[in-house]
């Protein structure tokens, strides 16, 4: 009886030790700091975005897909435009790549994203400071759209 109790008493201490060990590694207990974004501020305060970005995105997604409402502020394309980093050669890095804006936090929180199987994770290529709306509507592009590879 007694030895068994002793062993049980050791358990919390063990758990605590493990916790400290993990904390010293630094990654497991603290949320990652996302890479800096373009611009001064987000469409909502940071704490609101952290908590509710998925609700904003889902709401706007339904408005856009079913109601044809475009250009509202909670747009996934907008997120990507601001939060995608570029590498040393100026090439955009996907926001769901390891350590990038979306991925770093989602892997910390252990929440699977279901966006980028369909949506591109990098800004539109020739955007050059234009909004997506402006880019798709610009007359030049209507004629000289970048052709994508075609194998059929």
């Amino acid at each position: 009886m007694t030895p068994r109790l002793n062993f049980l008493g050791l358990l919390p201490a063990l758990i605590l030790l493990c916790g400290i060990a993990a904390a010293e590694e630094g990654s497991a207990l603290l949320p990652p700091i996302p890479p800096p974004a373009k611009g001064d501020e987000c469409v909502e305060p940071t704490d609101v975005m952290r908590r509710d970005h998925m609700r904003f995105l889902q709401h706007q997604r339904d408005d856009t897909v079913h109601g044809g409402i475009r250009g509202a502020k909670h747009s996934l394309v907008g997120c990507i435009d601001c939060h995608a980093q570029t590498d040393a050669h100026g090439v955009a890095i996907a926001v769901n790549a390891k350590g990038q804006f979306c991925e770093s936090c989602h892997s910390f929180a252990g929440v699977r994203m279901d966006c980028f199987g369909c949506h591109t994770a990098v800004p539109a290529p020739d955007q050059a400071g234009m909004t997506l709306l402006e880019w798709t509507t610009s007359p030049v592009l209507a004629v000289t759209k970048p052709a994508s590879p075609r194998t059929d």
Partner: protein
Amino acid sequence: MADGSNALADKSRRRFLTRTGAAVALGLAAGVRFIDFPSARAESGPVSSSQRWGMLIDSSKCASDCSACVQACSDEHGISGHGRPQTDAQWIRKVTLRDKESGRETSLPLMCQHCEDPPCVDVCPTGASFRRADGVVLVDKHICIGCRYCMLACPYKARSFIHEDLADQKPWSPRGKGTVESCTLCVHRIDEGKGRIPACAEACEREGHGAIQFGDLNDPASSVAQALVQRESQELRADLRLNTGVRYQNL
């Protein structure tokens, strides 16, 4: 007992006040922010049934050796094949026909016919396959589970299932493995509200054929509506009475 319930009431009242205060503060902050936003663009939509987008395809103007519409669609929506024609996606295809009696040959582009009463919408278990108020038939890929029942139901074989991973999607045309897709009538262009026409129609015009006319079938002043008044046109599979948004002439 009474004391206890009073304390409880007090507590809930306090909580109510705190929450109201927070809500007001949040609302104010949101309002201020909204007004402050310099780049807040005017929102478009929502779409309404006062419009019905459609096409009129004049087969006599369609050149059998031209596939500019197909190429333009692929470019616009980033549809690139994996070299497996049986499973690669197609949103628009060229078909050449020969009349069994007269031998007359015609050529036409075939895509989603954007039915008013679409069989694909009827059979979809989740409602992912839907018809927008303005007549555009779409797949909401967020709730498509990939059952492909709509593909069995479509009389035009207009839909494709995505059989493998895709990359480099266009920002305005999300597409992905495991869901079904088809011609969107380039809704992203329609929704801009600036009169841009679908990529296929634009390409056909650029090639000088002008076989694909696009417009609002409900607007008597639109060129499509006028052309439909002037000359006989037909629906594909008219026997099914689907009232298609895409019509053909000189088939």
